[in-house]
């Protein structure tokens, strides 16, 4: 099958949805003429014009607030927050407006906020995974794809969804290639996890960039006789309990991985769900792998030590499955 990058997959999704529905418009800093900091909106200004691909001033309250207004007025804006770190600026517009207006007055807010997350040599203010900041906010959905296929299908669904969806794109993965069928209407329902690899001994639940670390770890562990199942929730809110619990019931062991700090991250919710719904199935303690509880460091060796990688997954799996010592 055809292989394209995640960047291209996202661009195709935007293009297709903009063609399908005039109400879809793009709104953000430097997304029109400059085509976005990561070029996800390349070509779209030429294709759809200034009324549908709209550059904004440097003002994230406006990027999100303005998009919320447009959504309430019946458009389907896709706002871009250049970096996920900037979510903090627009939390009020997102969490107190977008998330609550349906409850407040019955109006749908069909908004997507796309944003680039993850560490990539830029230091503490341009590297964060901030999905944990909004996981306790009723009214939002949260999506985090790990492949080109998922990126395309989930973004198209997010745009069609009548609820505010925050869509996290791991910036190290924009260039990652994957199979995506040419043509057709690739739509992946929100709220459905994907088993990225089947296995019998242990479940590794991983999100975003760490999915690929989990798959690499699983390949390596295969050689050591350990069969790992890799589950990618893809949608973090709502979480697909069914797929997660099913996998845990099959393997009886579980490791949860994400790039955000471990404490208070999405892994806490996943671990809690397992502790509530499948505790008797477990043959070893739940284990979470996340970043340490520090800002994202700049220096290369520090950043490398910070971001959870395949080595840490392998070590953790070995510890869990052979508790007498690795």
């Amino acid at each position: 099958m055809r292989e394209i990058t995640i960047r291209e997959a996202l661009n195709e999704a935007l293009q297709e949805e903009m063609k399908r529905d005039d109400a879809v418009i793009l709104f953000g800093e430097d997304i029109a003429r400059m085509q976005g900091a990561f070029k996800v909106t390349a070509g779209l200004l030429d294709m759809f014009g200034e009324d549908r691909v709209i550059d904004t001033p440097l003002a994230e309250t406006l990027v999100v607030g303005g998009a919320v207004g447009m959504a309430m007025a019946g458009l389907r804006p896709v706002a871009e927050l250049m970096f996920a770190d900037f979510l903090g600026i627009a939390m009020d517009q997102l969490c107190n407006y977008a998330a609550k207006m349906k409850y407040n007055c019955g109006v749908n807010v069909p908004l997507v906020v796309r944003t680039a997350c993850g560490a990539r040599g830029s230091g503490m203010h341009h590297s964060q995974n901030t999905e944990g900041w909004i996981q306790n906010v009723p009214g939002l959905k949260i999506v985090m794809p790990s492949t080109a296929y998922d990126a395309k299908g989930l973004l198209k669904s997010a745009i069609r969804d009548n609820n505010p969806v925050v869509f996290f794109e791991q910036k190290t993965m924009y260039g990652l290639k994957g199979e995506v069928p040419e043509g057709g209407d690739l739509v992946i329902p929100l709220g459905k996890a994907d088993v990225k690899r089947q296995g019998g001994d242990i479940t590794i639940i991983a999100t975003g960039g760490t999915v690929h670390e989990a798959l690499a770890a699983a390949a390596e562990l295969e050689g050591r006789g350990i069969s790992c199942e890799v589950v990618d929730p893809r949608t973090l809110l709502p979480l697909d309990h069914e797929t997660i619990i099913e996998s845990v019931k099959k393997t009886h062991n579980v490791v949860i991985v994400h790039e955000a700090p471990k404490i208070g991250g999405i892994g806490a919710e996943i671990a809690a769900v397992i502790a509530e719904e499948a505790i008797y199935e477990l043959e070893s303690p739940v284990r979470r792998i996340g970043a340490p509880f520090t800002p994202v460091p700049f220096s290369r060796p520090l950043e490398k030590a910070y971001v959870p990688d395949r080595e840490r997954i392998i070590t953790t799996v070995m510890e869990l499955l052979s508790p007498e010592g690795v």
Partner: protein
Amino acid sequence: MVTISREDKIGLYRQLVLNRIFEEKTIELYRLEGIPELPHSNLGEEAIGVGSCYGLNADDYVVPDLRIRPALITKGVPLNEICADMYGRLGGTTNGRATSHHMGYPSLGVVGTSGIIGGHLTISAGFGMASKIRKDKRVTLCFFGDGGSNRGDFHTSINFASLKKLPVLYIISNNQYAEGMPVESHISIKDIADRAAGYSMPGKVIDGNDVLEVYREVQDSVERARNGEGPTLIECKTFRLRPHCEAHPETRSQEELDEAWKHDPVPRMEKHLLHEKILTESEMGDIRKEYTRQVDEAFEFGKSAPYPPVEELYNSVYDGEAEWVRS
């Protein structure tokens, strides 16, 4: 400038009276028996909402703040529904999920807002942008107070509206106070409307207690906005005659209040109508009677409507099925 017909003067007056009676009733009921939604009274500020919204088209957008209920009532939101929302009952706009304070009424262009003051300024720019994109000729009226104008959203919203020539009116009710803070203690300039110059957009200071002036000035800016000439910042000077909310004690001096009552917009309009021989005292009495009955009925409706079933709690969090909100 717009000239105002006799009929419209009567129409404006009727709205003033309706809103005044609604406020008086609210204050009275709160004092006598309580109301679940803590009233933040607009007594004395009615002319702003009334004058601004009286001449709007049905599909124009109104983005209200906490104290601008007269805008909603003038836009046509049914009193019964407002009252049901104040009491958290069925029959309102959200079956008790939300207060009436920040209610939306989509079919009348009334945009739901937030109790977190000032966020609705950027939202308003979004409505304006939507109208610009769709060329639908709607205008958006965004209402806020002197206090609310201090949120950063003021800056980001009007800069964008002016840049894009959005059809948005930013209408400030400067009632001299934000809770306990007199305006000179929280705003570094005398006339907030003067800030418009810094955004290359017109700013006007008007008498917010003169419903005719409000009507004329807003209509003037509405026309400008509809013609694609962009936003206007309109500062309506007024005065908050009641404490911040009905649960608070009055902290201001009697002199200050007495002076302010002299500018009460309702008798002022009455004087005008009498002088112009548009209405007689007895006709005005009839109008008051009519609305007193209507308002009484609305409160009766709100108070006696049934409470929502607990199930209602789980509705309208998401569009589509969302069993999981019960968690």
